């Protein structure tokens, strides 16, 4: 897998970047947490950035630790969950569906 842009590892991570990451990850972190996490992530990132020291230009990446390919299932139906079991753990349901609060219209739209 390759991605379009490629920046070198950042020297540090800012408070604003941490706030952005928290938003991307749907974490309503507090102001105090922002300070703590910014400092801690900075230390961790500097430590893990050491992977960049390894000359690995032509080395293939390993995404899977097993040498398997084409693991496929036949197109045969199984028993579904009874609906009450499917819904049993949900915080809120209405008429057999999972209820959620209003979705902001500028939120991500799938497909």
């Amino acid at each position, binding site marked *: 897998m390759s991605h379009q*842009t490629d920046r070198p590892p950042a020297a540090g991570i800012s408070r604003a970047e941490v706030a952005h990451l928290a938003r991307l990850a749907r*974490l309503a972190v507090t102001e105090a947490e922002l300070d703590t996490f910014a400092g*801690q992530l900075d230390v961790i990132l500097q430590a893990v*950035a050491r992977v*960049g020291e390894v000359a690995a230009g032509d*080395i293939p990446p390993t995404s899977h630790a*097993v040498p398997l390919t084409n*693991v496929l299932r036949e197109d045969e139906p199984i028993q579904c969950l009874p609906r009450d079991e499917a819904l049993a753990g949900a915080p809120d349901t209405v008429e057999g569906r999972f209820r959620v*609060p209003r979705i902001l219209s500028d939120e991500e739209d799938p497909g």
Partner: protein
Amino acid sequence: MAERAEPTELTRMTATGIAGLVAAGEVSAVEVARAHLDRIAATDQRVHAFLQVDTEGATAAAAAVDAARAAGAPLSPLAGVPVAVKDVFATRGLPTTCGSKILEGWRPPYDATTVARLRAAGLVVLGKTNMDEFAMGSSTEYSAYGPTRNPWDLARIPGGSGGGSSASLAAFQAPLAIGSDTGGSIRQPGAVTGTVGVKPTYGGTSRYGLVAFSSSLDTPGPCARTVADAAALHAVIAGHDPGDSTSIPQPVPDVVAAAARGATGDLAGVRLGLVRELAGEGAEPGVMAAFREAVDALTKLGAEVVEVSCPHFGYALPAYYLIAPSECSSNLARFDGVRYGLRTGDDGTRALEEVMSLTREAGFGPEVKRRIMLGTYALSSGYYDAYYGQAQKVRTLIARDFTAAFAQADALISPTTPFVAFRFGERTADPYQMYLADLYTIPANLAGTPAISVPCGLSGGMPVGLQVMAPAMADDRMYRVAAALESVLPAPAPPQL
């Protein structure tokens, strides 16, 4: 039956010993279960190994074994033996929290493959054991439900993330336990509690129903007080599962026979590689002293010990702390308060995005949040190649190091962990100090190779573990070596609780 074993004795027995008594009708499975449930009731206030004790379910499962025996049905080798299951495995109808508030009260509608295999083999599930939240940690201090204490010293950590499973063994609450090992979460708790912990070959045990932390690394495995017991449990849970695409469709190596062979104390013709990069750096002197004595013992058993070099192992920890958080940031996205688990802040005024964010903020602890943000960062388009992509290349190099080392030796050895159990709070202030606990265990996870931790003496009165690593799908080799070591260096008994 002439003599009836006392409950306290039952809790000190090996799993295979218990199974033999049950099979012979010397003791009922219900009595065995009750003895362990009583022991849990008597000790778990202090140890806190369990998040959930299933007295009713355990008793019923044990009664079913007794009924099957009475009916003359054949019993599988561990039928009637109690087992503690790490709370990261889905158990049908039994709360499964992963040590997190976000899953408090969730009762899965299905059993993990590992749990289903335990039940099918007549093992008696006692309950669910404590763990660092979503298996992220090395001390159980990150459990949302309070830490587990090390039975050797209640002021110290039992290791992590599977501290509950290992502590339950050291506290004689259970003869067997199930764990999951992503960077050392079975082996490191095994080492610091003086018990045996096994990370099988990745793909050798099914991940179906194991709540994912880092999918390409997570491996279910057995925990026990003896190598033979671990092998017997390994044989029950291992083997191909069509429900896990990464499950290897090959026969499981005969680990039970390998452990039996090792127990004879003969390692003639076995060549062991001492990994230069995993001996010394960051290790406490007491740990190294115990390790060296164990190496001497292995030599005396006939093994030839050679030094091997795995030059990229020094990069295993950084690579791991990019790959595991990246995968976890995606795996843990599903905890959003829509389909199961906690929902916070839905007061009728807030929009979904805000409710999701408040839910995740309230439901996850600090270490989980740190790793989610770290992984989100490492997968971002601007950083992917430098972080996640590069870590995966390092992973390839580490696997190549293993291949080269296994060309020189049948199995590799190292200390399991650089330091013995530390005191609570010692490493929580600086997250990276905690990460160092997994320094020696992580390479096997990155390569998908199996490894075992077996007790090898004490340092300052606390247990030390020796790690044996084997090539993928050659799990039997490490069992043989570990059993041989155990035969001359029996695990020290923990102090009375």
